[in-house]
């Protein structure tokens, strides 16, 4: 099932078939970011089982199509999944159901092979996102409501294209959310090899008028790398490490940052594998180290069984263990109980002829901690200027595992 739009020179649809063949051929999780076909260069992006494919014959910065596709995917899921409840992700049905909107959005975002309007707020004014009201209306009356906005949003003309000048919201509040991902890698001897935090500052602003916000940190020196939303002014950051910006309306990613060389990890896994005469004893212990002070939620430990293992028999004293079709072993723990350490143990049977296991799986851990930013980054204050009334300000933080792995 393919959606597509050709611009400029005609590209034959058969290229999709070619790609599909290639994709199925090299299924072994090798995600390519640039594919050279006999006639074209292809840039695939795979999101939630939907493949977005860009294709060119000529030289261009490869990151441009890649970045565009991921932006397109973001916007599309923003458009289509917002109405269908939280946590919904793009899938084939949703795209099918809204194929007209997909076409329209794509047409607005792309002109002659070059991105045209990619600012989500602007797009939503031009192509109206589907919402529950229009859906119900449609179902009742049988008339489809217009999916195209009546006029060009003023923002398209203004110098701050990300902000529409007439936000519909009447609420007066702004939420700042620190979302961090903790990357850690522990090697076979149990030494911490690498530990860093990749974080995003997500802001949800619903402020009327033309607010001017300033966000400052208590410890900006922590930040190793930063990237900003286009609304952030560069100069104040350069001079005093303060984020000064006119926010877009709604949800957006103000800044991404990285804090490196952390020393503490909240959770540890101690895997042990011993093998002889065609059998391998496996055991793994999960525990909390450097208690972060908040509960650690939805802990999942995953590892890939090596290909030379024919069967596995795994049990745990807490949580459930599943072995998925692609030989991934998933141990869902949830929260760590107070009274005991969750442990997994079992026996792996090796392929006949193999005496000992010479390869070692890597244990990946996923978890979530609400209410804390593991990097230690702290927001000092948020000043709102250019506003008639003082808005409500909310702050939140959360940490989850990124590339959090233990080698055995």
């Amino acid at each position, binding site marked *: 099932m393919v959606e597509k739009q050709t611009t*400029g*020179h005609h590209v034959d649809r058969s290229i999709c078939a070619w790609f599909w063949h290639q994709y199925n051929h090299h299924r072994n999780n090798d995600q390519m970011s640039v594919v050279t076909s006999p006639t074209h260069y292809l840039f695939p992006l795979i999101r939630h089982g939907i493949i977005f494919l860009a294709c060119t014959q000529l030289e261009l910065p490869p*990151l441009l199509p890649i970045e565009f596709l991921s932006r397109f995917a973001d916007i599309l899921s923003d458009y289509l999944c917002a109405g269908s409840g939280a946590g919904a992700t793009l899938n084939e049905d949703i795209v099918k*159901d809204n194929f007209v909107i997909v076409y329209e959005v794509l047409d607005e975002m792309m002109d002659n092979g070059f991105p045209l309007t990619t600012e989500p707020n602007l797009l939503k004014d031009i192509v109206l996102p589907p919402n529950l009201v229009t859906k119900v209306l449609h179902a009742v009356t049988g008339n489809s409501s217009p999916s195209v*906005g009546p006029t060009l949003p003023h923002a398209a003309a203004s110098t701050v294209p990300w902000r529409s000048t007439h936000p519909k919201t009447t609420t007066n509040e702004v939420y700042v959310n620190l979302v961090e991902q903790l*990357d850690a890698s522990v090697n076979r001897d149990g030494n911490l090899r690498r530990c860093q935090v990749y974080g995003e500052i997500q802001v949800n602003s619903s402020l009327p008028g033309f607010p001017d916000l300033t966000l400052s940190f208590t410890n900006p020196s922590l930040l190793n*790398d930063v990237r900003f939303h286009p609304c952030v002014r560069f100069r104040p950051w350069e001079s005093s490490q303060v984020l000064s910006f006119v926010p877009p309306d709604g949800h957006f990613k103000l800044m991404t940052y990285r804090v490196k060389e952390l020393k503490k990890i909240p959770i540890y896994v101690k895997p042990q594998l011993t093998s002889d005469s065609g059998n391998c004893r496996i055991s793994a212990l999960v525990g909390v180290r450097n208690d972060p002070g908040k509960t650690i939620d939805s802990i999942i430990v995953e590892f890939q069984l090596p290909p030379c293992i024919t069967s596995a028999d795994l049990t745990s004293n807490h949580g459930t263990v599943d072995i998925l079709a692609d030989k991934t072993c998933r141990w869902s723990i949830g929260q760590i109980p107070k009274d005991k350490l969750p442990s997994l143990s079992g026996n792996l049977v090796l392929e006949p002829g193999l005496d000992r296991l*010479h390869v070692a799986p890597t244990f990946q851990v996923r978890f979530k901690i609400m209410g804390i930013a593991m990097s230690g980054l702290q927001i000092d204050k948020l000043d709102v200027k250019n506003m008639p009334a003082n808005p409500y300000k909310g702050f939140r933080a959360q940490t989850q595992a990124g590339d959090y792995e233990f080698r055995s």
Partner: protein
Amino acid sequence: MLPQMGAAAESLSKASSLVMRIGTDAHLYDDPDDVSIKPLLESRYDSEKVDALKRLLALIAQGADVSHFFPQVVKNVASHSLEVKKLVYLYLLHYAEKRQNEALLSINCFQKDLSDTNPLVRAWALRAMTGIRLHVVSPLILAAITKCARDPSPYVRKCAAYALPKLYNLHQEEISSLEQLVDVLLRDNSPAVVGSASVAFNAICPNNYPLISKHFKRLCEALPDVEEWSQIILIEILLRYTVARHGLVRESVLFSDVTHDSTFSSVMSRCYVEGHELWSGDGRGFEEVEMGTCKNEDVDLLLKCTAPLLWSQNSAVVLAAAGVHWIVGPAEEVKKIVKPILFLLRSSSVAKYVVLCNILAFAKAAPLLFDSFYEEFFISSSDSYQIKTIKLEILSTIATESSVPFIFGEFQDYIRDPDRRFVADTVAVIGFIAKQLAVLAGTCLEGLLKLVLSEPLVSGSYQIEEEDGVLVQAIISIKSILKQDPSSHEKVIVRLVRNLDRIKNSASRALIIWIFGEYSSMGDVIPKIAPTVLKYLAWSFHSDEVEAKLQILNTCAKVTAKTKGNNEDSTLFKKILNYILQLATFDQNYDVRDRARFIRNLMGNKTKNNLDIYRDLIESMFCTKPASSPYPSANIRVYLPGSLSQVVLHAAPGYTPLPKPGSAVIENPTGLNNSSDVDESEGSSPQYSTEDNRSGYDTGTEETSENGDYEETPLVNISEANVDQGQTSQNDMSNFVSTDLSEMMSRTALESWLDETPSFSNGSFGQSHSQNVSTSNARVSFNDRNFKLKPRKSHVLLEPANSDGLRISYSFSTEVSSVSPLLVCVDLLFENFAKETLRNINIRFEEASGNSISGPTDPVLEDSASMVSPDKIPTFPMEEIPLLSPNETVKRILQVRFQHHLLPLKLHILWNGKMHLGKLWPDIAYFLRPLSLDMNSFVEKEKQLPGMFECSRRCIFSDHLQELEQNEKISVNADKSLVVAHCFAVKILSSSNFYLVSMDMPVSLKPDDMSGLCLRFAGEVVNSSKPCLITVIAHGNLTEPLDVTVKLNSEDTVFGLNLLNRLVAIVQ
């Protein structure tokens, strides 16, 4: 809906999904054609039209061709509902190119919409109008863009800027007016418009540096405010401009000492500037190339304005900005780019591979920049194999003595990775690093050896391909480390050899045997164990595989050759060698037998006097070390950072290296101060009228844009009249696009154009002729086609001197073969210069398989030929000439099929029972059949073959001078330009097999000016039956040699290029 309802009753989950689908367009997608679409489209209600259009879109999405609804859909373009409009535009853009005539109907509506009060409608109309790609309306599009470029809404202006490249793709003749528009848009106040104008600039005139120089400062300052996508392009433009203007910067990292490997960075900078093809790889220093200046303020400004972009959330922008700093930034500031680039790795997982490719290139030139960030390149289990390998390569490049312990510690873990391909790569990298850093050689060897001897690899019972890969790679790594300093690692060799018996994999065995043979005379221990090893090899020979057997033979020969003197060992060695040779001579594999025979002859022939020679021979044969292939690819391929070519490692079509440093000389960058007078510069300003022959048109649109109504446009200015000269009939006029255009323009009303009443153009003719004095839009066509073709060039196949007086010459014929369209006809001329009669002259073809000469009369062999290649048509035989009396000439037609359009066909020429070899060289110009096309279909075909199917070359044509001279004597009256055109056509037609589609040239005031003379030829490639279109355009005065551009459009690009070269050779 009903069956779905039923399903909903069955399962709750389905029901919930159904609820979610209510109100969406799901049912339209599922059964798009469950109702008749046509009446819906013609409905009076917008909602029904929307419904129909959505169904059409659904069908398009499913891959169905619904272009037959085109007429109905086009009508709806006039709808006032925005949604209908949007959907109609979507449909139009999809099919307009297929249904050009109907698409014309929509132009009127677009023009109305362009004057709408809603900027969104204006922008959409412009986008749709430019998007439908109709050649005939390009002047209207230009007018529309010109109008929109001055629109009050920046959004519309932005769309106007994006529309420029579309028009340029369609119609490349109006460059000057397009550039003028780019100039106007670059001056815009809104950064968004400036950004899109820069995109247009890049597409239309990327080398127009004076234009940039006018705006350079403003562009730099606007850079941070420009939209992120345009930033990518604008950065590149500014970089190219700076390099072209000021040259590369001496302080930049490419020339500084930061670089670890100065040759690499100099190669790199050369590749950036010259591109790969031009770089010959000689030792010429880069300094010879004009390299330019130290820092100056333009460069500083560019760097200052791109620095904040390193924080952009768009990874493409970050990489582009990093590229600027890399190329023109001073070396000490290049460090700035390192962290942002590395951050890209984490922040956008999709772009990881591309970023890594670029880092690799950077790291190769300046490893020190990255050496402290080695941790970034440690592999995470979620990385794909592709990313893992490139990370390894980066690690191997940046490893230093201080970081290597950590890197190796990391490698220890990788060795146990389940992905054995990756393990093999890791092992290779270990070998590479150990080679670079000699200190580590010992530990590395130890580790590798442990790996090699570890149980699973050698156990033999558990053999899968990947494990073997690891093993072989490990031994290769050991080998490459040993090569650095073999004598100090003697023990390693001994251990390897001692374990030879445990290793079963033949490639690994062969490698170890080679190592043993190579270093057999070294150190103290190895010579002592040599006899035992050789005995073992002799014992294991029969059970080894071919690869190892060959290596055993070599090694034995080597060892024997190396032992000098006549001691106990040497006799033993000889015995063993003889034994092995004996075994090998009766081996099943003929390679082994060959090798054995070879060695036996070499070793066995030892007479006293030439013993030394043999020894030397053997030693130099076996003991020279084969050239090692270092792990990273030896051929350095570098392209500009951030380019597609850098990722795929070959120059992608359209890749252009940086301009030559300092190549742009801008006399007077005064443009900065005239940016205020936008209004003055357009309209009828004299400075443009010379280069823009449609300046009159420009003023015309200015007037109309005030009215907002195109129907009133005084169109005479742009009419293209068809001035026929003498011989042609009026009917032929309809052959020309120019006629169509003129009619359409003069009547404007599109409906009447579609009615096809060709009479009106005559009315406008006189008018336009009088006004066209200054323009060159009117064209003269020459329809006199009574050419006297010159005799075709004949080539000699057989000289009489070496063939008893028989001379055979051949020339290619324009006839089409009667047997198969794939055959080319060749006229053969047999002449007998001898005094005796020649008998039984015949020509036979050498078969492709090369082992038989097929007699043309032999049916069996002919059969076999057709069996060899059933898809190939066998070359048609020639009729034998029984007798050829002296001075007699006989003509024969030979129908041949060439395997390739450049390679000769080998022939056997037989006469009087003798045989002679000959070669028939193909002439690519006759690998065509004339393709009879009229002008319209030519243009249409041409449009279908743009971009990579198009190539062009320039050359000089001077034959007409001679012709003119002759003509002057005969008749003064003959039209000179006609003579030139004729001369041209004859030249091409008499040495190729084309159909002449048209000859025309613009009417010009100057009698001798031939500029714009245009000839079009069409042919069909014999082998592929694909059309091949030639357009020849001449420039210059007819009394001088003409400057000719030959353009070729063909799907068969390789053939096309060769043909183009041939045509240029013909013309010259």
